[in-house]
């Protein structure tokens, strides 16, 4: 693998002594070199204390002991120039529009399938496909109100979309808290940079939710955040967002459906609900329609949805669009719905469902990253270059058994960013998850997003469930 592009030092990589920083990092570099090392140690401890105190924790599945853990936070910001951001923003807006058009299409006329852009079985046989949605037309035809796209950078002007998260993307609370912590710790740095604010996100989210109130609603729209409860790994975020928006954080048992309308139980009696920002998966939303044993959902919710009295954000069935197999068709889908090329390209991907591709992948496993089509959070994936021989053999077996279930990508040299480690400042690989809000009125893209960093040297896995950390992300307002 060639040296990775470094966010601070550019194509030359971070390895070269005395390398000059890229323009966006010039002021930061100067400031960091001027500060004594103890200064950063003290600030890092303060940051940790701050996070612990406000109770931002992240529950990791399968770790009963450390039921609540802090996601490591690195104090070196990741900086994106205003010019770079313009391109990213345009690409994200295009991506969100295409995902929405695609979903309206697959639950409607099915033009993309008829035109042969994407195989029918990938859509209609997809685990994320919900046949119920052919009877529901989501208010304003919006399916993906909140999109979290995972971007990776491999060169000066080379950003790829690695993944679309069109169901319930998480991480936005870390984006906001990271900024809050950074502003408290380093006010002098913010005085030297014009950093585009991210604090408006909760207002933008609320405006988006209110804009998509159902047509049938005749009152000032009431929006709620629906959470699976305090034991969910992202509960902190659910409660954080409800708090910042000033809306109720509800669990399934707080809601009930009567005459195809949704109400919440309050101390003043039932109150009508118009928009539900749900952080509960499709399968658990309504035990009458989906998993009957689900205690997280609301019986009759789908009937209300079908009757058009409530908006569910993101729409039920949006999972078809962030499936990793469907992802591979995104360049073609962008062209199909917009007539233009994708502004943000996909990572070159082999679809293992295609025999030629499968043969290639099986021959090159040690150099590829293979992902389960339906996996997420870094689970169920093979990173060829770091895998042992036996891990590769096991994976090859899985692949042969179920080629449909996998895609493969080259091992990308994800860009690195200087990060504090046990041995001092060192380059670590990062990705970027920006958030795109699509309302009935407009599209709102928050400048920046969540930068995730793989803290282990050489590691490419940035997921917080696997030991990744986060950084504040600055978009310079130039």
């Amino acid at each position, binding site marked *: 693998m060639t040296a990775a592009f470094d966010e601070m030092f550019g194509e030359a990589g971070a390895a070269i002594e005395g390398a000059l920083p890229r323009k966006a990092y010039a002021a930061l570099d100067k400031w960091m070199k001027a500060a004594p090392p103890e200064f950063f140690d003290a600030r890092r401890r303060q940051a940790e204390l701050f996070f612990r105190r*406000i109770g931002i924790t992240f529950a990791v599945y399968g770790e009963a002991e450390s039921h609540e853990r802090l996601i490591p936070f690195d104090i070196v910001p990741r900086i994106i120039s205003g010019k770079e951001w313009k391109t990213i923003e345009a690409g994200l807006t295009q991506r969100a529009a295409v995902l929405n058009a695609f979903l309206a299409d697959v639950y409607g006329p099915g033009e993309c399938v008829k035109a042969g852009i994407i195989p029918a079985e990938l859509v209609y046989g997809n685990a994320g496909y919900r046949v119920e949605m052919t009877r529901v037309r989501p208010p304003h035809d919006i399916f993906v109100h909140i999109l979290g796209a995972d971007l990776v950078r491999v060169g000066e002007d080379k950003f790829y979309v690695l993944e679309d998260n069109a169901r319930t993307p998480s991480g936005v609370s870390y984006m906001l808290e990271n900024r809050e912590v950074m502003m408290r710790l380093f006010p002098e740095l913010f005085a030297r940079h014009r950093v585009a604010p991210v604090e408006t996100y909760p207002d933008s989210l609320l405006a988006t939710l209110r804009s998509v109130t159902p047509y049938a609603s005749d009152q000032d729209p009431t929006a709620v955040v629906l959470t699976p*409860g305090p034991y969910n790994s992202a509960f902190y975020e659910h*409660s954080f967002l409800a708090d910042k928006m000033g809306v109720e954080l509800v669990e399934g048992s*707080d809601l009930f459906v009567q005459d195809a309308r949704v109400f919440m139980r*309050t*101390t*003043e009696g039932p109150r009508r609900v118009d928009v539900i920002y749900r952080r509960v998966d499709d399968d658990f939303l309504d035990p009458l329609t989906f998993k009957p044993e689900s205690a997280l959902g609301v019986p009759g919710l789908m009937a209300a949805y079908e009757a058009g009295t409530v908006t569910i954000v993101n729409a039920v069935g949006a999972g078809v669009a962030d499936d990793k197999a469907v992802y591979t068709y995104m360049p073609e889908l962008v062209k199909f719905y917009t007539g233009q090329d994708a502004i943000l390209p996909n990572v070159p991907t082999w679809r293992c469902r295609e025999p030629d591709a499968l043969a290639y992948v099986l021959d090159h496993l040690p150099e590829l990253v293979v992902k389960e089509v339906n996996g997420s959070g870094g689970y169920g994936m093979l990173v060829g270059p770091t895998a042992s021989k036996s891990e590769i053999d096991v994976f090859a077996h899985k692949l042969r058994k179920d080629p449909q279930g996998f895609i493969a990508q080259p091992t990308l040299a994800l860009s690195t960013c200087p990060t504090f480690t046990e041995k001092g400042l060192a380059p670590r690989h990062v990705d970027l998850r920006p958030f795109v809000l699509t309302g009935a009125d407009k599209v709102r893209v928050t400048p920046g997003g969540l930068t995730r960093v793989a803290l282990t040297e050489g590691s490419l896995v940035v997921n917080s469930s696997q030991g990744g950390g986060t950084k504040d992300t600055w978009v310079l307002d130039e």
Partner: protein
Amino acid sequence: MLSRTADSLYWLARYVERADFLARILEAAMRMASLPAGDGAAGAEWDSAIAISDQREAFTAAYGAADEQSVRRFLAFDHANPSSIRNCLAAARNNARAVRTALTSEVWESVNDAWNQFNALDEKGMDMQAFARFIEWTKSAARAFDGAVHRTQLRNDGHAFLRLGAAIERADNTARILDVKYHLLLPASEPVGGGLDYFQWSTILREVSALTAYRWVYRESIKPWLVADLLILNRQMPRSLASCSADIAGQLDQLGQAYGRRGPAQRAATATLGRLTSLRIEQIFQSGLHEFVVGFIDENARLSNAIAEQYLL
């Protein structure tokens, strides 16, 4: 506000109040244990602590006889005892965590800090002095919570549910202290008004931080009926049943006004307060302190149920 939110606020405050109460029970037991033994009451102080906590069956099943070690362990640290200080702090934090959106950050931090600090304790290496410090710490954690609520929490319906939870729990606790004292503490051989009796009544006053208050109010040596008067009927005494009842009725009135509707909870609270206001301590002693207190505990529990049915479900 969501009924579940109100429920969590109510129980958050109840559990914090209960943790404080357990600390006070343990403190009183330690003090009584320092009395010279030999008068037939040896060990009774630890037994009475279990009796007050209303957990006798669970305690006996797990530990058998009550002594300092077992009672300390059971009331303060036991994972299996749902009403140990440990589990009260855990339950308080879980409730707080579920309704963080309804709490100021100061209130949340008071509960979260208490839990984090509790977890950093070393129970095994705790000698008598360290345990006394732990008791003080528990009481100060409850005060930090009360203070954060008082200083920062918006005076809306959420605040009313916090206050209701605290007042209902406190009323229950005060009633239990009184009852256990009267019927379990005093050995049959000991004369009412004797030295042991005196010490126990004054310990009860200490338990609720009211020894000085007693002297201010009555300017007399300690007499059982005056202690009962202070803890049952005196409206100046913040832990008295009358004070708690006034607080409960007041909070429910505010809720009734805010929501434009009164219900069974308001009627029950008003009735209790009315009775406590018109009663005199002589009447209570005439018809039996024990009967009165048991009746009150039931009534208080029914009121809690009425609040739950009207608002929390």
